[in-house]
């Protein structure tokens, strides 16, 4: 039995989430700007959030068991000093950047993450529209280096929880831009609005969790453009508020694609592992073809951010 434990910040933040949602709604209602709310959309998002917590309680032992196995193997133990916690937080944010990027570029991982983008609204409830199927993406392996480097699994999960809680407040239209220095370093409502855009310009950008610097370092940063307002949702929007359909629709689509008759093994694998939009006959659009088609229609956008 390992005695080290940290609080589950995601669960502790639930009352704050509820209060902030009520606060944002009242702000929008009183000011008449700063976002939109719709009953079924919001309820679906909240149920997805509750289901995500339940999924963590039910399936969390798999990732935990994996991390503890690595912890047994590694000879390193960095302890839990304040500096180690800060270092772990920063490295875990880098881990988040790549998991999030994989989540948009590998359909198997996208199948889990897609539900977070499935709302056509962008408010604080959207932040809670979280996956139920993250365990099945096996993205826990991206955390393995942290544990092997000597960060205790409990610490790794603790900083990951703080990362998620940070991202809650950036899901809002009620905040325009933060001070320039903050926008330069941190992920903000403006940066993350762009990430949620289905406009060709904003596809596959701004994967950051807490620090936007990762996007700037790895070439995926696109600033929100005043002349191209963000259109929220999926390229191909879903037409159901049923949480089960929201949670599983892309998994069902992968299964149907992979089991089509007449495909080679490689084509079947690509339906699971290639970027979303892959098709064996080229009949569907990927982010790249969507951007290219947009530029063919709007050549003036060539060379502007996102293109």
């Amino acid at each position, binding site marked *: 039995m390992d005695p080290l434990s940290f609080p589950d910040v995601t669960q502790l933040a*639930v009352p704050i989430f509820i209060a902030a949602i009520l606060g944002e709604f009242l702000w929008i209602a009183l000011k008449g700007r700063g976002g939109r709310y719709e009953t079924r959309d919001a309820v679906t998002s909240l149920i997805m959030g509750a289901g995500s917590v339940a999924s963590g309680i039910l399936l969390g032992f798999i990732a935990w068991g994996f991390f503890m196995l690595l912890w047994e193997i590694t000879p390193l133990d960095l302890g839990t000093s304040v500096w180690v916690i800060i270092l772990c937080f920063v490295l875990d944010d880098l881990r988040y950047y790549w998991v999030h990027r994989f989540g948009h570029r590998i359909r198997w991982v996208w199948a889990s993450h897609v539900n977070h983008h499935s709302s056509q609204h962008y408010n604080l409830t959207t932040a809670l529209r979280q996956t139920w199927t993250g365990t099945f993406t096996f993205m826990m392996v991206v955390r393995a280096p942290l544990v092997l480097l000597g960060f205790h699994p409990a610490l790794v999960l603790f900083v990951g929880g703080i990362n998620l809680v940070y991202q809650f407040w950036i899901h809002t239209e009620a905040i325009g831009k933060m001070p320039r220095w903050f926008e330069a370093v941190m992920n903000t409502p403006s940066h993350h609005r762009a990430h949620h855009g289905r406009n060709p310009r904003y596809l596959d950008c701004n994967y950051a969790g807490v620090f936007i610097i990762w996007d700037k370092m790895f070439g995926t940063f696109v600033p929100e453009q005043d002349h191209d307002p963000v259109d929220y949702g999926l390229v191909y929007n879903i037409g159901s508020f049923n949480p089960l359909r929201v949670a599983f629709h892309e998994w069902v689509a992968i299964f149907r694609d992979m089991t089509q008759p007449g495909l080679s093994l490689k084509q079947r694998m690509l339906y699971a592992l290639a970027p979303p939009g892959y098709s064996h006959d080229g009949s569907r659009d990927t982010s790249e073809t969507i951007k290219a088609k947009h530029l063919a229609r709007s050549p003036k956008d060539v060379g502007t951010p996102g293109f």
Partner: protein
Amino acid sequence: MPLELLLILVVGGISAIALLLHLTGRSTPRVMNDAQARQAWLRQFPESPIADLTLARDGHAALIQPADAAAPLGLVWSFGADSVARFLQEAELSPCTQGLRLRLHDFSAPQVLLHLTKPEIEDWQALISGQAINLPHAKEV
């Protein structure tokens, strides 16, 4: 946090927010006019221009005849405060008391309930089943 407390917070929070939104009028489906329905279609299918558009009287749905004559009919409909659009190549149509029910064989958009008047039901049935196009009320956009 004890699981019981978490459960109370989650269920209570969701219920309170749902009630507040509903009582403040956030459950009303979007009503579209011709231009808005056209825009909603092109938002989903920018490469499929519209030849004809038939807007339901309640403004909650519109039947789309794409400019490409070989393309199947399309449907754009209110989805909460927003819209969703689909081509109708595999749709199954069945009348119901409110109008027509369309089953789309699409896990992410399984069915659409179209609230239509009696004359509309006949027109839309004819259009969707391919027996007639360009009815008098179909508007060019």
